[in-house]
């Protein structure tokens, strides 16, 4: 996209006032989207963007400028702007940076393919629509969408490395709305990952996505109001991983810890959860949405142990915070696009298998809810209060599922909830691949995974008196 000599020139220019580190992030992104509504392709969209972001880091400060104009003059001006952060620093002689190419081995490389015919995308969303409508006569509306994106990045650092990553991302999803007995119900399902759309030919058919969304919408038509108050909760395998992401994950991102803002600051080596709890974050899993060959600072994706048997083992580090904390980066520096500076972020966060069976967990629950899938969540970093939103849940009494419940927010405190984990199932799996994480105004694709677990007490925000 830009030639290797220009990368070298931009880095030298960016560091002309000095600075600890500089990088140039060049990106090209080509994304296709189709929406199906009312029995026809309703919208089609194409987005083609490219640009370059240049950063200079001095201590804990960073100067940044980006340009979507790729001319040498515009990029040199961006380098000058980024260099401005170091203007008051001690005078240093300018450095000459020469970058060289470094090979990257991305786990998802083998599944790259080229763009499919338009007709193939259309066929996929048509099949979603047909299958969802055929699922049940109570289905009144189906909104299906397919997206296929290819992001290519080139990252040159003042350490002399130039790396390239190529990140495909596809999603096929359906929102289904059902009306029965005067009640409305909605269900959503989507899947995909860093693969090609041939994934939907055999591994995950459009029909399976459509039927899952339709099934949930019907469960929600029949749902009773969720209970209110503190009770036991079974967190379902797969999308229950949203709990880990919110209750713990964000609190272990290194910017919050280096700044002393997170309640987990300075607590590596300490007990932060029940000893049943082990949590990993991994950027190297084939096909998962949060996987990366290299992060957006050119550091290879890694497997990180965040919590092991309840003990905090480490944070997720980008370059800036790692350097200030005196540790190495963990391949966690991610950004939404060339328009933003990187932040420490999660990739694919999950809990491995425990020892309990799902039947045992259910049988041991006297009164509570079984939250099978989640729409998302949010956390407050300093005290650790979090919420997550149940999109399919059931009331449980005396070890048995009694009735589905309407959407409800669960509220808890991270360390308390993680300490209250009393059982971990042996059915760990990743959630369907459609989650996106937002932080500081930047969205990045992530994966979450979990076995079925049980939390002894948590607050359920329904409307029905307990």
């Amino acid at each position, binding site marked *: 996209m830009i030639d290797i000599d220009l990368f070298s020139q931009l880095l030298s220019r960016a560091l002309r006032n000095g600075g600890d580190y500089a990088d140039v992030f060049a990106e090209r992104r080509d994304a296709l989207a189709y929406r199906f509504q009312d029995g026809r392709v309703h919208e089609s969209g194409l987005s*083609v963007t490219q640009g370059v972001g240049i950063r200079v880091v001095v201590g804990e400060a960073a100067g*940044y400028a980006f340009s979507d104009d790729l001319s040498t003059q515009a990029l040199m001006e961006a380098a000058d702007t980024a260099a401005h952060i170091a203007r008051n620093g001690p005078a240093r002689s300018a450095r000459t940076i020469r970058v060289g190419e470094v090979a990257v081995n991305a786990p998802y490389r083998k599944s790259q393919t080229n763009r499919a015919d338009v007709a193939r995308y259309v066929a996929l969303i048509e099949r979603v629509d047909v299958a969802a409508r055929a699922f049940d006569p109570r289905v009144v509306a189906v909104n299906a969408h397919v997206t296929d994106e290819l992001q290519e990045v080139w990252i040159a650092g003042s350490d002399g490395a130039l790396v390239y990553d190529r990140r495909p991302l596809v999603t096929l999803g359906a929102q289904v709305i059902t009306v029965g007995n005067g009640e409305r119900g909605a269900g959503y399902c989507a899947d995909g990952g860093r693969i090609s759309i041939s994934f939907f030919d055999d591994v995950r058919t459009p029909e399976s996505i459509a039927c899952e969304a339709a099934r949930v919408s019907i469960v929600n038509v029949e749902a009773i109001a969720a209970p209110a108050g503190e009770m036991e909760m079974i967190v379902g395998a797969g999308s229950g991983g949203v709990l880990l992401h919110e209750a713990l994950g964000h609190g272990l991102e290194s910017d919050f810890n280096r700044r002393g*803002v997170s309640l987990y600051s300075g607590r590596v080596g300490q007990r932060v959860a029940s000893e049943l709890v082990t949590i990993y974050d991994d950027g190297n899993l084939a096909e998962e949405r949060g996987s990366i060959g290299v992060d957006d600072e050119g550091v290879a994706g890694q497997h990180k142990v965040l919590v092991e048997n309840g003990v905090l083992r480490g944070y997720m580090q980008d370059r800036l915070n790692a350097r200030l904390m005196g540790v190495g980066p963990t391949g966690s520096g991610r950004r939404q696009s060339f328009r933003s500076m990187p932040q420490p972020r999660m990739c694919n966060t999950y809990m491995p298998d425990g020892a309990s069976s799902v039947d045992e967990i259910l049988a041991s629950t006297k009164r509570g809810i079984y939250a099978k899938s989640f729409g998302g*969540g949010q956390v407050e970093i300093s005290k650790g209060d979090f919420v997550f939103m149940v999109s399919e849940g059931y009331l449980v009494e005396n070890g048995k599922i009694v009735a589905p419940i309407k959407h*409800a927010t669960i509220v808890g405190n991270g360390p308390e909830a993680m300490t209250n984990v009393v059982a971990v199932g042996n059915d760990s799996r990743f959630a369907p691949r459609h989650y996106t994480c937002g932080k500081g105004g930047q969205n990045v694709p992530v994966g979450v995974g979990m076995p079925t677990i049980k939390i002894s007490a948590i*607050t359920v925000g329904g409307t029905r008196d307990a």
Partner: protein
Amino acid sequence: MRDDEAINAAREAVAIAMKQGAVAAEAVASLGSRFSVEARQTTVTKLERSIGKSLSLRVFVEGGRKAALSTADFSHDSLRGAIARAVAQAAVVGADPHAGLPDQTADSIPDLGLFDDAIAARDDAAGIDDVLEMERELRASDARIDNSNGSHYAGGVSTHALANSNGFSGVYSTTRASRSASPVASDGEHKRTAHYGTAARRLDELESNASVARMAARRTVEMFGAGRPATMRVPVIFERDVAAAVLSDVFSAVSAANVAVGNSWLSGRLDERIGSDAVTIVDDGRSAGRLGSSPFDSEGVATRRTVVVERGILRTFLYDTYYARRLGAATTGNASGSGIGPNNFYLEPGSGSLDDLIASTGRGVLVLDTIGFATEHATGTFSRGARGFCIEGGELVGPIEEFTIAASLPDMLAGIDAAAGDLHFDASIVAPSFRVAQMQVSGI
């Protein structure tokens, strides 16, 4: 100069699309520049400057088939290539009699006072002084504030030009400045953070550094010693920022794009009572100097003032041209990029202050902050994590957190029994503080 550059880019894109076989086309070209700065304590930690541009194009081919393109590459050859792909893509879209350009576009472009030279010409050093001052004010305001997650100032200029193949072209420019602060406080045992931010089109209307810092500091330290409330049904007061978040959910429900596909609990409810007498909701694109104002929407249709809910009665949904045709109505000038967006969408204020509202509430909960976004728009099921204060005998008696508030949006709108007079237009969706007569609070 920038006006010419933007309008020429939009016109050129329309011309290319027509040459490539489109029967109609519309392009929006935006040029913007932005400066932002962050400080923590006494250090400037981020300086960012950007100059960006974007082009959004809609092309229509025979039968009302359409495709959208967005790109940042304005060069003639790249544009030709991308537009050719969009035209080809449009051909596979289902025929749709409702798709097409608007019947009528704005015939004049009034100056709504959306541009402030003071923001456009502001020196970077002034922004740097702002954030350092906010950090000083934070530390001075309370001894427990011993850390910061960063104070921010940002200022920017945008130019929006629109051209379509029916001969419309128009351009306008806006400015926007914002300030925010995120202090961290500690009482030796617990840490607390909170955030306060504000924005305006004019620098002299932007809340001062001292005021932003004071508000952020108060929100941070007032939560020390918070307990958890009992699970109960009580009146709930939403302070204006969280009241605005509730109004965002109402906006989703009146957006014709959601109504048309059944994803709104207000589908089929036109001219029915959907709220109490205290509920009058307006969308106004024409008020001077406000963040949600513009002379024309993203299809070139003149913006206007629309009463959406009048004393509890749902009068209209909000439309763009496509959904208006599909639902047999007229556009309300709410086209926004790829969908339907708010202009200045607000709940009419009542009178009195938030304190008056609290004083008139015997026992209840004041909500100052919510987390989560679990609104199920098809059914109107509303549920959020919250923090705030318990109210007893008309007085705030102690901070509370780690609880949820829940109700259905229909019950909430029907239950709004009072609104304060504290409406403040610092976003495009705003509301005064209001009280819902009864909601489920879920704690211990």
